[in-house]
């Protein structure tokens, strides 16, 4: 009897398993839902930006669904996203991508947070020919591998601070400038560095300090002492939020006077909130700013997006959220143009994307990167300890004049 019972259980579970795998092969579109998958960092060191990304995705899903959803072959569909927590761990992210594709039958993917995790997932999506629209992997190496199913709505990392060098040269009367730079030793920051090297070559500028900061380091005193000694025209720092916060803390404490300071990750670091007026005049690279005048019919303008986002999630959207929302607009557009759920048709439609969203223009280059949207620079400006970010470059979108040079610390109150 016992044996028979066991056999029975095995039989039932076998059938269940078979059924599960059978249904999941149709899971890409379930009823009226188009199912997207994403591994995202909800815990671990990227969890705050992971949550910004998820909020961006969710905001767009809700908005698109409310405004009629996606129309394919005359039928209206809604978006739905399956999320898994990748624990900020690249290996885990790759496993989860496999799971999303093989077990959950997802046929369209949204990117994770950070270049490192996107790099881990891209080979998987490529292997299964799953189109992935990602919004948070900017590393240049993502776009040089010849991936055919990877599409990024954001500008690649090497473009982050190139504009800053151009600006410095412009202020120097078109002559080359002396650059001091300090970059963390990780894929993203080193890509930003490559961009600076290109820009320096192009403008005839000279790099006089080129420090590579170890990841474990949270003290830049040595680099800054060198900067004080050699007096460059521009200081460039990139080391994620830790780098941005450490730089401002130590520049202000060591009273390092530089005419221009350019950084990344200022808004993710909540620089102006944490350091107040010490962060004033810092120039920050950003993918997006709410004051830009791009428009679309789902979110209206950047300002309106920021307002709605604030209402929904209780904080001002960082660009990580905005670009994540844009990724869904791209998917919707591609599905409608493909007018099919065939993966390759959707992929081909993505290749031909050319649209404007509240986040910026989107058109994919041969490597999958967005070539239609420039990076912007904002400058932190303060009244007392109340600081805000004002767009100063490129000129087309600038709402304020670029303040140059930064006054000396002895002249700052």
């Amino acid at each position: 009897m016992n044996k028979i019972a066991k056999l029975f259980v095995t039989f039932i579970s076998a059938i269940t398993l078979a059924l599960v795998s059978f249904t999941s092969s149709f899971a890409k579109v379930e009823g009226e839902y188009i199912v997207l998958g994403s591994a995202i960092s909800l815990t671990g060191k990227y969890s705050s930006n992971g949550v910004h990304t998820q909020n961006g995705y969710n905001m767009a899903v809700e908005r698109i669904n409310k405004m009629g959803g996606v129309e394919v072959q005359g039928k209206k569909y809604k978006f739905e996203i399956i999320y898994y927590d990748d624990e900020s761990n690249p290996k885990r992210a790759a496993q989860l991508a496999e799971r999303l594709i093989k077990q959950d039958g997802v046929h369209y993917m949204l990117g994770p947070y950070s270049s490192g995790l996107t790099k881990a997932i891209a080979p998987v999506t490529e292997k299964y020919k799953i189109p992935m629209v990602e919004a948070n992997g900017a590393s240049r190496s993502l776009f040089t591998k010849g991936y055919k199913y990877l599409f990024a709505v954001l500008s690649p990392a090497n473009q982050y601070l190139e504009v800053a060098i151009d600006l410095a040269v412009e202020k120097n009367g078109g002559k080359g400038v002396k650059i001091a730079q300090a970059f963390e030793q990780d894929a993203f920051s080193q890509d930003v560095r490559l961009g600076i090297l290109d820009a320096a070559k192009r403008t005839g500028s000279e790099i006089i300090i080129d420090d590579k900061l170890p990841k474990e380091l949270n003290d830049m005193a040595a680099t800054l002492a060198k900067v004080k000694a050699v007096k460059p025209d521009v200081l460039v720092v990139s080391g994620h939020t830790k780098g941005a916060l450490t730089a401002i803390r130590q520049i202000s404490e060591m009273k390092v006077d530089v005419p221009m300071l350019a950084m990344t990750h200022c808004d993710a670091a909540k620089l102006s909130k944490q350091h107040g007026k010490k962060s004033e005049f810092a120039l920050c690279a950003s993918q997006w700013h709410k004051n830009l005048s791009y428009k679309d019919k789902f979110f209206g303008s950047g300002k309106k997006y920021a307002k709605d986002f604030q209402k929904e999630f209780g904080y001002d959207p960082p660009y990580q959220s905005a670009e994540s929302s844009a990724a869904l607009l791209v998917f919707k557009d591609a599905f409608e143009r493909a007018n099919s759920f065939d993966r390759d048709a959707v992929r081909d439609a993505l290749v031909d994307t050319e649209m404007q969203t509240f986040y910026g223009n989107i058109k994919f280059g041969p490597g999958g990167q967005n070539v239609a949207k420039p990076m912007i620079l904002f400058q932190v400006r303060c009244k007392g300890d109340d600081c805000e970010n004002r767009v100063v470059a490129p000129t087309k979108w600038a709402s304020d004049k670029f303040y140059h040079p930064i006054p000396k610390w002895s002249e700052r109150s």
Partner: protein
Amino acid sequence: MDFLIFKAPMLMVQASLDGILLGILFALIAYGMALQWGVMNIINIAQGDLVILGGYIAYTIYLWGIHPAWGVIISPIIMFFVGWALYKLVINKVVDRDLFISILATFGIAIVFQQLMNFIFGADVVVAQSEYGTTMLFDNSVTLPNSKIFSAFISVLYAIALVIYMRKSKLGRAIRATAQNARAAKILGVDTEKVYAATFGINAALCGIAGALISITLTLHPYVGLPYTVRSFMIVIVAGLGNLPAVAVSGMGLGLFEEFADYILGTEFRIGAVFLLLVLILVYRRFKLSKKREYLK
């Protein structure tokens, strides 16, 4: 570029002072590690995470509008009990086992602490502002943040207080007796269980002080504990156990060495250089030891 430091002598002063001030802070953490290593024979991988937790306590009171410098008093008190509780929950089960088990156990504690801090305080990098200003020397060519001077001063103060406490108080004597020979101490009526708990608590309290100082001098993040563990481990290895002056000297020495390595070899090699030095010291030690053994033969 590499030898900028020799062209500008003021840089040398700057580098030395930066290195020493930072080294003193690291020495405080290392002292805690040496203490419990010596007494309990436990290498605490969670040391750095205790430091960061201490930092978050200071950051929390800063968010409440209290000056973060008060953290150097509040944080060690709270951390002492955290350490005590940790001992009662986990460490007492591994204290007389071999070293490997204690490393595994504290490694587990480190992971739990990281995730808890991430859960409670979020994954953002945070800083507390002391607004202490800057000391400028030599016509502004050497600038020292007062927060770093403050942190070195507090570290020295606590270290001295602890040395006196270990010499004079009953508990201090009991701790030293247990470190020398736990069994003998037990026979002579020392409650070693209590001594262990207190030692772990004192270590956690030292981490709490260091953390509070880090919150006003450097940055806090739930996952940056490990470098502090590694650094203090290194200082203890160089200094040897139970030798406080050596810990202080080795802390400052490593700080100095690191700063100079930065100028001469380049920033990317600064941590590598410190590790290289560690390897050399270990090889040298072994070399000396093997010579001694030959002599004994």
